[in-house]
């Protein structure tokens, strides 16, 4: 009897040990490979640098809380330097060699367009942080983008102008992709909103002094100035306008989304009006606003970790990773087509730029409500109340 019970015990113990050993041997699930191409250096570094930092920070946070469906994200970040041929080479690397599930970025529209076909044919999900309409129109099934629409920004500006009774405007834009896209949207939408663009000029993005161009606008007696550009021109426009005595309202684009630009403009930046995501006024949002919690957390984490002011551009990368993570969760797997389908059908995802609702025709996910009209008061961002 004893021998038999001992034998049974032995078997049980052996089974237990084997079972435990088997449990220990079961390694962690392989990580989810996600690629990212950002312009960390080069002429678009004001976009790529915060995007890279944000992407890494968010992936770390996700991994610390256990990853997605129990799997960690492995983020492979590449710096394209703002060059489209580098973007092409790096995209091919990520797709062919690292076999990533998705690519986040690139930061500029030119680079995105260069790799749009490559990602589509490589069945790799591309979630771009660039704003051009052509990225999602015509729609390519694997290609998405997270920034708001330039056309919505333009419409928002025109609506605010109409409320103030402005009808004649002067437009100045920089000659990079962002500026040219804005110029096109303004020209297209102004007549519908009853605004006349009296004069529209382009300046070089590295222009050192804008008094000349603004003098030209002044001579046309415009009632307001729209400036569509990025650094450093934005602050320069504000200052030069005041200096040459062009005392009309200044409307900027959503490229104005960093407190540093306000600081660069100094006293001249006060009164600038521009449409933007709500990230910059996170604290002043109503407590029950759906975006508030996320925005405050992102702002706090970013500024705490990197000791620099948050910018809306970094938010585009945040949103990209966020919606990818949501899609993977929803799909319950990392099968490309399943994740893509899940991504295309995401609704009501709260991000930094707004609330995303994707569909088969709309791979941008944002509408005009993503914008809030902001202004600068006493050197700080505030919601614009007319």
């Amino acid at each position: 009897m004893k021998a038999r019970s001992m034998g049974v015990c032995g078997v049980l113990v052996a089974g237990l040990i084997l079972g435990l050993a088997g449990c220990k041997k079961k390694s962690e699930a392989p990580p989810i490979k996600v690629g990212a191409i950002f312009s960390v250096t080069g002429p678009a570094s004001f976009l790529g640098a915060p995007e890279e930092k944000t992407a890494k920070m968010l992936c770390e946070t996700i991994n610390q809380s256990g990853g997605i469906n129990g799997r960690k994200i492995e983020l492979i970040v590449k710096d394209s330097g703002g060059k489209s041929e580098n973007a092409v080479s790096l995209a091919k690397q990520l797709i062919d060699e690292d076999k990533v599930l998705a690519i986040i970025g690139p930061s500029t529209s030119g680079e995105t367009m260069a790799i749009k076909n490559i990602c589509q044919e490589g069945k790799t999900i591309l979630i771009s942080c660039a704003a051009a309409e052509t990225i999602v129109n015509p729609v390519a099934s694997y290609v998405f983008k997270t920034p708001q629409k330039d056309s919505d920004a333009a419409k928002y500006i025109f609506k605010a102008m109409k409320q103030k009774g402005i009808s004649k405007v002067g437009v100045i834009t920089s000659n990079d992709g962002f500026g040219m896209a804005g110029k096109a949207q303004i020209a297209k939408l102004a007549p519908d909103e009853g605004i006349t663009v009296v004069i529209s000029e382009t300046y070089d993005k590295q222009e050192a002094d804008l008094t000349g161009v603004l003098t030209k606008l002044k001579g046309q007696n415009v009632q307001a100035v729209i400036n569509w550009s990025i650094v450093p021109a934005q602050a320069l426009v504000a200052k030069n306008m005041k200096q040459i005595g062009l005392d009309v309202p200044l409307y900027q684009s959503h490229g104005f989304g960093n407190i540093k630009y306000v600081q660069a403009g100094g006293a001249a930046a006060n009164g600038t009006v521009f449409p933007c995501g709500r990230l910059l006024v996170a604290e002043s949002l109503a407590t029950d606003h759906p975006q508030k919690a996320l925005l405050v957390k992102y702002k706090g984490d970013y500024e705490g970790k990197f000791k620099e002011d948050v910018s809306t551009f970094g938010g585009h990368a945040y949103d990209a990773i966020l919606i990818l993570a949501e899609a993977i969760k929803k799909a319950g797997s990392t099968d490309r087509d399943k994740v893509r389908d899940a991504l295309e059908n995401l609704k009501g995802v709260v991000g930094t730029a707004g609330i995303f609702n994707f569909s088969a025709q709309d791979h941008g996910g944002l509408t005009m409500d993503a914008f809030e009209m902001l202004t600068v008061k006493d050197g700080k961002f505030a919601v614009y109340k007319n």
Partner: protein
Amino acid sequence: MNLAQIIQYCLSGITVGSIYAIVAIGFNIIYNTTGIINFAQGEFLIVGAMMAVSLTKVVPLPVAIGLAVVITTVLGGLVEVVFIRRVRDASVLRLIVITIGVSILIREAMLHIWDEKVRSLPYFTGTDVSTISVMGAHMSPQVLWVLGVSAVIVTGLTLFFRFTLIGRAMRACADDRMAARLCGINDRWMVTLSFMLSAGIGAIAGCVISPVTQTQYDMGAPLAIKGFTVAILGGLGNSIAAIAAGLILGLLEVLMMSQFQAAYKEAVSIVVLLLILVFRPSGLFARRDVSSLRAF
């Protein structure tokens, strides 16, 4: 276009023109003493401004600018000693290539030390919105600073080269290096000094224009190209002509912009450069008998 507008345009043109002229003068100083075109000239402006911006956090503005100028001057000397002096077989190609390499190095170093953000010094007098009125045209007081500092630099340099011993020694090196050496002038130190001087005035210029144009790590190269255009336009080596040439180019750009699309403004300086090189490489103000190109 009324008078006020014309004056406004002229002011705009003169402001940028004087900036180009200062860069051109920096080129000329080095060229005169060594025959080298220093492609890294534009970077000195930016280094000076960046350093001043960082220093203003700890010391008051004038001290910050002074310190930044001193450090940049030393940097200029270092550049010469470390990179240029070693080049024994001084073929033009090698020197061009080295100074290009130096300018890239300095720019990338600035990127990694200071990052890509745009910075600017505070306005010397007044704020970002203060404006003064001249005959109906408005401008920032900083513009007067730019013009004033440029004038001071030019006068100072003229006096330096004409009346001080070192200045005359540098001119002697420019004229005939071997003869200067025979007179007991240490020509190698004159070369270093010319680099230091160019770097110094570059830093001063960079600081004075920083409130107006702001400062970003990659602004050096475009400035250098325009500065070189102006230097050639006036005649390489001729600093007084460089001032005139700078003002001409500045006004020409503004003229183009007021009559045509502002988008073509950048093309003006390149077209001017190509035209001058093709038709009159010795510059607008060169005397006919000295118009043959310097033999390299």
